[in-house]
């Protein structure tokens, strides 16, 4: 028997005044998976998260958790009754409560003994037992975040939502916190939906990726699939640089300024290729390219060049070949071939 999803969104829409913030969003999240909702700032992903948490109503569609409808246009289960945990971008720790009391806040109905035991377990699991009596303002960013996540998990929610959880942290601390928290969340077996605008972060942590732009879900699936086989240029660019190359398909082959690319199954006619920069390389034979400039960026080179009418920027490990021209070849595997937007 197939395992039912924990979370299902069915054509969810949210309207603020004249503006549609989220339009027809649909996806599902399976138990124990960590999913990332990736999109640029202002694309509606936080609104979507707040609707799942019950902090905003939906104007159309339905949100289900464990198959039970929680939000629809005519009814919204109150946030306190949804069994969904939410960790806010600013952590939202209560300044008048110490770490233990913050974590135990959601356990109001339990006996003191059970409550203490659960708080102690969470303090241990997140390595913050030594901070049990500390006040929130004395904690570092990473410690505050651990407390916020422990607090949200204390009620054993069926689903944990995290809104840009690592955005307040910098550099090495961000990497460390991310790595250790993910390990903890996986240990806890939690089903997690993380909102982020950082593609590298999303690729690094997600089992499932949901790409969002302008209030719409563009694509969802495994991170590698989304990266290698984006369904649109917008989806491709959410996950990193993508060079758009014009092509004409004929007899299962796309003819491009960079050379032929296999396109089995695609109809004949004009198309676009979304090519990741690392798929292009300098070779003895290939398309003639004019090198405009090359800049060393420490761990590699950024090279601006023109092939035919197409200007592109390559990221390479080696410096550009000497001279003003070079031959550019394409690694034809895993190239996304897209129909023209107006086609």
């Amino acid at each position, binding site marked *: 028997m197939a395992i039912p999803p924990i979370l299902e969104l069915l054509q969810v829409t949210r309207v603020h005044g004249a503006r549609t913030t989220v339009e027809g969003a649909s996806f599902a999240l399976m138990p124990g998976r960590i999913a990332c909702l990736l999109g640029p700032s202002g694309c509606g992903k936080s609104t979507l998260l707040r609707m799942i948490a019950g902090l905003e109503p939906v104007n159309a569609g339905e949100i289900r958790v464990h198959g039970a409808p929680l939000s629809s246009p005519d009814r919204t*289960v109150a946030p306190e009754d949804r069994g969904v945990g939410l960790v806010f971008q600013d952590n*939202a720790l209560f300044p008048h409560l110490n770490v233990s009391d913050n974590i135990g806040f959601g356990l109001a109905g339990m006996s003191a003994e059970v409550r203490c035991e659960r708080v102690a377990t969470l303090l241990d699991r997140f390595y913050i037992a030594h901070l049990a009596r500390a006040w929130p303002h004395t904690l570092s960013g990473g410690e505050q975040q651990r407390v916020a996540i422990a*607090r949200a998990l204390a009620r054993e929610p069926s689903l944990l939502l995290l809104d840009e959880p690592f955005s307040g942290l910098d550099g090495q601390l961000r990497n460390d916190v991310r790595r250790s928290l993910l390990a903890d969340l996986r240990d806890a077996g939690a089903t997690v939906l993380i909102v982020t605008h950082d593609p590298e972060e999303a690729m690094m942590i997600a089992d499932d990726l949901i790409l969002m732009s302008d209030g719409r879900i563009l694509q969802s699936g495994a991170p590698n699939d989304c990266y290698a086989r984006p369904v649109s240029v917008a989806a491709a660019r959410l996950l990193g640089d993508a060079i758009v190359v014009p092509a004409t398909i004929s007899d299962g082959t796309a003819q491009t300024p960079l050379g032929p690319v296999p396109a089995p199954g695609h109809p004949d006619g004009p198309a676009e290729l979304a090519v990741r920069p690392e798929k292009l390389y300098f070779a003895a034979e290939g398309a003639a390219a004019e090198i405009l400039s090359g800049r060393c960026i420490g761990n590699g080179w950024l090279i601006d060049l023109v092939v035919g009418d197409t200007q592109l920027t390559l990221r390479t490990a080696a410096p550009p070949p000497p001279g003003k021209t070079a031959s550019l070849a394409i690694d034809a595997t895993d190239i996304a071939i897209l129909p023209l937007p107006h086609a």
Partner: protein
Amino acid sequence: MALTPATFLRQRRLSLTASLAALAGLAVAMPLVGVILAALGTETADIAARDIARYALTSAWLALLVGIITAAAGTLAAWLVVMYHFPGRNHFAWALALPLAVPAFALAYGYADLFDVAGALRTGLRDATGHDLPFEMRSIGGAAFILSAAFYPYVYLAMRAAFLNQSVNVLEAARMLGCSGRAALWRIALPMARPALAAGTALAVMETLADYGAVQFLSVQTLTTGVVRAWSVYGSTVSAARFALPLLAAAALLLWIERAGRKGQTHEGGKARWRALDPEPLGSAARWLAFAFCLMLLSAGLVLPVGWLAWNLGQASPDWARLIGATRNSLFLGLAGAAVTVALATMLAIGTRHLPLAARVASLGYATPGAVMAIGLLAPAGVIWNLAPGSGAVIAIMLLILAYAARLMAAALEPIDAGLARVTPSMRHAARTLGRTESGAALAVELPVARGAMMTAGLIILIDILKELPATLILRPFDFDTLAVIANNYALDERLGQAGLPSILIILLSLPAVIWLTRRIAHARPGA
């Protein structure tokens, strides 16, 4: 977590917090509505329209003079204390706010006794120099001086906070662009602090329009004395309410100015890159001039008049039984009024987060004189007294407390709003996702976080109620005297020696709270 159909939220339900806020708003808006309804009545006293115009003109002059003097004195004092090192600067920083503990009528008693024709200081100077002083205390000018001495702390505190909020970066940028230190004051610091100046001056003017005890004693006839006179001498609530209407209009205007000023303050400077001002040392003459100015201001608002009243206490023959009773009544009204006002203000602050207009309407009473509030409550009081004839005293005290709450709502709302601002929307939402209902989140998170602010609000209200006179005069039960009422009664009989003791008792009761509040304000820093 198991989910049952019972957990579905009925979306259009009026929340408990919004309902409580609506009730609190109705309670404090009642006197304002009462005044407007009363003014529509027909049984007017024989008061000529030109009398109302004359009273209004006097009020306007007084407001203008006090506005100018308090704006200048308060701003200069704040600038000196924030920007420069001079002897006593750290003490002046909080002591300059102490006149807030002194009722304006106590200053009037002190100054009148010193500067009347037979006054001690005037007589002494006349004997010593052979010339009489060229001014009268019992005049608009004298009243403006006394009320300015009483109310300059409103401007001082607002401007001090505004100057402290200014980052030294902008002043340094001005210096780099060719401004001298003095030019930086005129071209940068003052324009940036203009919203605070408007807000502080509006508060001082509101208090001026609301004052009854001082202007009544100095025989300066303002709209507020008109309200009380129409009611007490002519027995006409309708006429009193008509005197009150221009005051209500002025109140709305001043409150709008004050709120607009506060709104502007929030855009001041960039807090993220805020750097504290580093006060500069002054030259040897200038530092003593700065010291003398601050000392003069403090003397005018506290030391000279209150010292004189205290000096004369020896000549008084106190009626201790009456004083003790009045102290008890003052404290009872002050504490009960503070508790009720803070409770109503908290309900309003939490429940009207998305309805700022409702909070603004409820705040309208702050600029409205207590006398006007009392008149507005006379009609509902009459209805209640008719329904329950035996409950006169209890109902009167409850109405009096309601009048205080309506009058002082804005003063309580401001610190409570600021305290609640520490609770971010995400904290409230976090409490909801952790199992609390909306009112449960308010109880578990918002109230505990705002506890300190509620304490501050309570002390401010306590001080104001201890000093309050006109509403108490009109609404108090028979034979229920407060210290302010006793002082006023003695002063009307020209027994200033006797009036001094209740006045000083009010100051002594208020002073610890004022010191606590002003020190707290003096040590506050942006972002704290």
